[in-house]
C-alpha cells in the first residue's frame, strides 16, 4: 500500500510534470505514437477487411493470417526489427501496427458480413452499384462493429506503446524502464498508472463514439 502512496506522491510532484522528459511531454509522445499507429493500421486493415467482408472471398486466409499474427510477441518482433532498422521510433511503430491490424481487420470483415442479406438484396434491387452498396449501406450498418475493432486495437496499442521506450526516447514507457532499473518503484508504478488512466480515457471516448454510431442506423432503418 505504501508503494501506491509513494506512486501518488511521485505523480503529485509538479517537478515531474514539466520539461522535455516530464510527464506532460511523455503523455503527448505516448498519444502521438498511439494515434499514428492506429491510423496506419486502420489505413491498411479497414479497406482489406471491407473487401473481404463484401466479397466473402479469402476469409479463411485472412482469419488464419490474423490469428497467426496475434501470436507474435511484440517485444521479440521489436528487437528483430530494430536490429535491422536501427533504434528510434520506426521499429516500435511497425511492431505496434502489426499488433493493431488483427482486431481492426476482424472488426471490418465481421461488421460487413453481419449486414443482413435482405438489406443488401434490397439495395441491389433499387439499382445501386457495388460501390454505392458498400459505401452507403454496408459500411454505415457495419460501423458499430468496425468501431468496436478500433476500440480494441487502440486499447492494445496504448498499453503496449510503453515498449517504444525500449529503443527510443519517447512515451510513458520511459518511466517504467528507468524506474525498474533504478529500483524507483514509485516512478515505475506512477508511469503504469498513467498508462492505465490514458487507456481508460481513450476507451471511454471510443465507447461513446461506438454508441453514437449504433443508434443512428437502427433508427434510420425503421420501416
Amino acid at each position, binding site marked *: 500500500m505504501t508503494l501506491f502512496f509513494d506512486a501518488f506522491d511521485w505523480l503529485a510532484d509538479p517537478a515531474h510534470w514539466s520539461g522535455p522528459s516530464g510527464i506532460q511531454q511523455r503523455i503527448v509522445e505516448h498519444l502521438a505514437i498511439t494515434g499514428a499507429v492506429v491510423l496506419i493500421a486502420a489505413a491498411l486493415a479497414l479497406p482489406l477487411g471491407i473487401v473481404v467482408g463484401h466479397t466473402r472471398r479469402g476469409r479463411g486466409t485472412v482469419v488464419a493470417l490474423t490469428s497467426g499474427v496475434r501470436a507474435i510477441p511484440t517485444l521479440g518482433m521489436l*528487437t528483430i526489427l*530494430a*536490429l535491422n532498422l*536501427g*533504434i*528510434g521510433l520506426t521499429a516500435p511503430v511497425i511492431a505496434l501496427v502489426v499488433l493493431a491490424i488483427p482486431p481492426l481487420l476482424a472488426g471490418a470483415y465481421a461488421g460487413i458480413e453481419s449486414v443482413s442479406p435482405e438489406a443488401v438484396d434490397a439495395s441491389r434491387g433499387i439499382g445501386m452499384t457495388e460501390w454505392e452498396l458498400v459505401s452507403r449501406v454496408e459500411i454505415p450498418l457495419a460501423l458499430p462493429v468496425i468501431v468496436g475493432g478500433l476500440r480494441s486495437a487502440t486499447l492494445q496499442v496504448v498499453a503496449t506503446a510503453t515498449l517504444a*521506450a*525500449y*529503443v*527510443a*526516447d519517447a512515451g510513458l514507457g*520511459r518511466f517504467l*524502464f*528507468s524506474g525498474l*532499473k*533504478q529500483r524507483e518503484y514509485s516512478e515505475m508504478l506512477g508511469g503504469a498508472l498513467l498508462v492505465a488512466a490514458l487507456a481508460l480515457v481513450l476507451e471511454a471516448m471510443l465507447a461513446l463514439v461506438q454508441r453514437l454510431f449504433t443508434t443512428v442506423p437502427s433508427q434510420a432503418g425503421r420501416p
Partner: protein
Amino acid sequence: MKHRIHRRMLNAGLAVLASLAIAACGADDSDPLSDDSSSTSSSETIVVGSQDYYSSEIIAEIYAQALEAADYDVERELRIGQREVYVPEIEDGSIDLFPEYTGPLLQFWEPDTQARLSDDVYEALVDAAPEDLNVLEQSDATDQDSYVVTRAFAEEHDLKTLEDLADVDQQLTIGANSELEGRPNGPKGLQKAYGFEPKFTPIEDGGGPLTVKALKDGTIQMAIIYTADPSISKNDLVALEDTKGLFLASHVVPIASDKLDEDAVEIINRISEELTPEGLVELNAKSVDEQAPAADIAKAWLDEHDVS
C-alpha cells in the same frame, strides 16, 4: 547489467540452498568436535576458487593448471557464486587462491571508498585486505564498464581517451540502459569530468546487439560495454580510456593465502603479467563464441605463455 543482476540474485538463492544442503550433510557425517571447514584439504593442498562467471573460472583454471605443472597439489572450488558468498571463505582460509577484480573487491571491503583510478584502487585494496591475505600484483587485464565508440569514429576524430571527446565538434549521443541517465557516470558525470555534454537515448539491452547496431548506424556515438566483452573486438569497437576515473577501475588481481610459497606466488604473478587486456578478451571469446570448456581454454593459453 540486467542479466547480471538477475543472475546474481539467482546465484545468491542457489548458494543459500547449496550451503543449507552442505550444512545438512555436515551435520550427519562430520566429527562434531571439529569445526574446521577446510579439514578436507591437507595443509599442502592449494584450494583455488572462482566466481560464478565464465571469465573468472578460466583465470582460476589457469592458476590451477600452472600450479599443478609445478607439482603443487591443487583442489578446485570453481563457480562458487558471488562476493557475498565466497569472500568469507577466502577470509577464513577455506580458499587459498582466487582471481578477483580490484575495484569491486575494494568496494566490498570498503563500500565508501573514493578511489577510482587503477593505481589508487590497487593501493587502497592492499590496505583494505585482511592481514593474513596477500593481494598479489594486479594484471593489466581489466573487466569493467567502459565507454566505447566505433573504430572508424575513433580514427576520424583521433580519440584515445574520454578527454579527446571534448574536441569533437558534433553533438554526441550516448545509448545505454535508461538508469545511466541519472547516474554519476552518465551524461552529467561526463560533463563534469570531461567538459562535454552528450545527449542520451535509452536502449534497454545492456550494451547488447541493439546498442552495437545503433553505434554502427551512427544513431549513437557512445555506448557502455564491459572492457572484456568479446563484442568489442568482434564489432570493431574501441574502449576509450577513462583518465578521470568515472568508472571504478577493475583489474584482474589474485588474492592468496599464506599457503602459497614464494615459488607459487611467482608463478601467479607471472600469469598476471602475461595476461593482457586483449588476451583476456580472447579467452572470453573462446568461451562465448566456441563454448569451449574453461579447462581447455586455460590449457591452450598456458601452452602459449611461459609462466614457469
